[in-house]
């Protein structure tokens, strides 16, 4: 495309600066439109499922402990290497037991890879985002703190921990066969290919139809 840097302008257009008047009409119209500002501490935006906030270890409703099996996938996938896990291994059964699970929230970049890769849905990024502090210590989460984060999140948002799901715990679009057993959890109907709706040519179309054409 050839860009015209100097458009041809008539004498009147040049002298009376018509283009400027057009711009001024636009700003005047905008002055009477609603502002888009969200007055943060007073108003808060609605968070969508999959919002990546404070880290937590999901407390297993059966055992009351973390679900982590020390597979080390989260620690290896973490781009900022902020997860450190230590575990002990039983000599005979080779079963691993987590002795410490730590996340340095100050190094975390909130990419969500850890929760996506976790085969048992142990680690999760909750929708809590107001946890800044003046010192570093409270932002270095150890295992107890991570479990407490989960309890706080459940209590604050009145979530049923048995049915909690977000798009990282059960990646959208992935077929059940591709997923490890721990991630094969039931999803809401609009997450499945049947229930999903996509936008096409300005209209809401079922995802299946959109894929066909």
């Amino acid at each position, binding site marked *: 495309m050839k860009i015209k840097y100097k458009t041809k302008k008539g004498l009147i257009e040049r*002298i*009376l600066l018509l283009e*400027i008047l057009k711009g001024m009409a636009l*700003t005047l119209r905008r002055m*009477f*439109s*609603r*502002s*888009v*500002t969200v007055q943060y501490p007073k108003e808060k935006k609605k968070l969508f499922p999959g919002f990546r906030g404070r880290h937590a270890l999901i407390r297993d409703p059966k055992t009351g402990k973390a679900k982590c099996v020390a597979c080390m996938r989260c620690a290896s996938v973490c781009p900022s290497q902020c997860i450190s896990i230590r575990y002990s291994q039983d000599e005979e059964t080779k079963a691993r037991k987590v002795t410490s699970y730590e996340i340095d929230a100050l190094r975390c970049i909130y990419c969500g890879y850890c929760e996506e890769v976790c085969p048992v849905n142990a680690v999760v990024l909750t929708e809590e985002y107001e946890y800044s502090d003046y010192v570093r210590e409270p932002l270095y989460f150890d295992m107890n703190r991570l479990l407490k984060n989960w309890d706080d999140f459940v209590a604050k948002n009145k979530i049923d921990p048995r049915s909690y799901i977000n798009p990282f715990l059960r990646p959208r679009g992935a077929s059940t066969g591709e997923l490890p057993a721990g991630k094969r959890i039931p999803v809401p109907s609009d997450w499945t290919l049947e229930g999903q709706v996509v936008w096409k040519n300005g209209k809401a179309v079922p995802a299946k139809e959109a894929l066909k054409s």
Partner: protein
Amino acid sequence: MEILWILIKILIVFGVVMLHVAYATYFERKVIGHMQVRMGPMRVGPHGLLQPLADGIKLFFKEDVIPTPADKKVFYAAPLICLISAVSSLAVIPFFEGFAIANINIGLLYIFAFSSLASYGVVLSGWSSNSKYSFLGGLRSTAQVISYEIAMGLSLVGVMMMAGSLNLTEIVHAQMNSSFKVFLIPQFLGFFVFVIAMLAETNRTPFDLPEAETELVAGYFTEYSGMRFALFFLAEYIGMIIMSCLGVICFLGGWDGPFRVPGLPFFWFVLKVYLFIFFYYWVRATLPRYRYDQLMALGWKVLIPLALFNILLTGTIKTIFG
């Protein structure tokens, strides 16, 4: 007695103008905010109404830093020159019939003289700060003010010719007696040139090259802080008010309006001044800064010839019909 009355007038005008300056900053932020689909100040008081007060207190208690290599005496004097020349111009402005601190016969010339003097403050502050940004800002201001002073003076020559006087009260009276009631209609070319030159004269966007934030940090007052910075700020806003008043007096018929508002003889004057000030904000919210060569080209190639043509036209018509 006469002196006492003048002193009272000075106090009234000064107080009212200072209050207006404080709230001009607030409304500027509000208007520009809403034009950019934001809200502007909202936190200090309901809808941020106490923001100017908070700003004032903050500026008052800020540390006053003076750079070591600065030329101290000139550095101290520069903001005062700016402020004094801006405030002095208020003396000749007739706010309503018979209310001007000094009703002198060279009112228009007086305002020109003081608005030129104000640019000395800018130039000297740029020079004395001993900083490259301030220096460049000061230089730009010199060139800009020289260019646009001419256009502005010439744009008002048409008004002088029609009114036959430099006295601001007389100019308003001449408009009241003219057939259009305002000089805006016969002098539309002059008004057009005046409005653009007015923006340039007060260093406002799109002609804010002397204080171009993106290039020069803050331009000529980069090195100033605290109360001295506030003085420049005051001077800029008073300058805006003066130029608005001048525009109202010379082109929009001063305090005269379609009907008389009982008890508020200054009603129409103030309303028109607010419109002008709103126009300042509106332009600032809309236009980006001119490039330096564009600024010069607009001034010398468009505005000055236009103003000269306007004088020629006014003179010709006056000779034939008057």
